[in-house]
């Protein structure tokens, strides 16, 4: 659980910066930040499951 929370914290901080500096309108920035956050989480989970099956 702690690993997941740390990953979430990391994704949040990185997506805040990516979201704030990209796009033009606040709505687009929010959307982009949310998208980056979701990508971090999904890719992190997929990678962790792949590594789980690799001895």
């Amino acid at each position, binding site marked *: 659980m*702690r690993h997941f929370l*740390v990953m979430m914290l*990391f994704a949040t901080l990185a997506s*805040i*910066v990516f979201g*704030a*500096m990209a796009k033009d309108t606040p709505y687009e920035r929010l959307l982009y930040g949310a998208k980056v956050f979701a990508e971090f989480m999904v890719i992190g989970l997929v990678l962790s499951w792949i590594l789980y099956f690799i001895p």
Partner: protein
Amino acid sequence: MVKTERMQAEEVESAPGSAWLTGAAAWFIPGLGHLLLKRWYRAVLMGGAVWLCFVIGLQMGGHLFDLNAAEGSSQLLQVPPMIANLGTGLLYIVSWLLGSGFADDPQQAARATYEYGNTFLLIAGLLNYLNMLDAFDIAAGRKP
């Protein structure tokens, strides 16, 4: 048409001195560049993210890199992570002066959060490089 494009390119290429200063300020103290530009929410969000990332990284027991290589390790391998860590500007310098986060302590390295801390510290610096470029672009008029 070609002449206009060339003139536009020249306008884009020449950044004023204040843009360089803003960029330097953004590197030196995370968030300061946007504060100088009166971009309050960007300063709080982007600068705050870097500060948080750095403090959390240190709290987790992460290691800051300098040119002093550990035994059996090449000094050259220390350079890329040191460049990433250096991105936090004053935070890195103050930590270096206080000797905080630089020690090669086996007990610290044994902590479960040691590698997480390393990653947070590296990413704090890299995110601040992005902040710096963003502040520079705004100051140079390349970004609204």
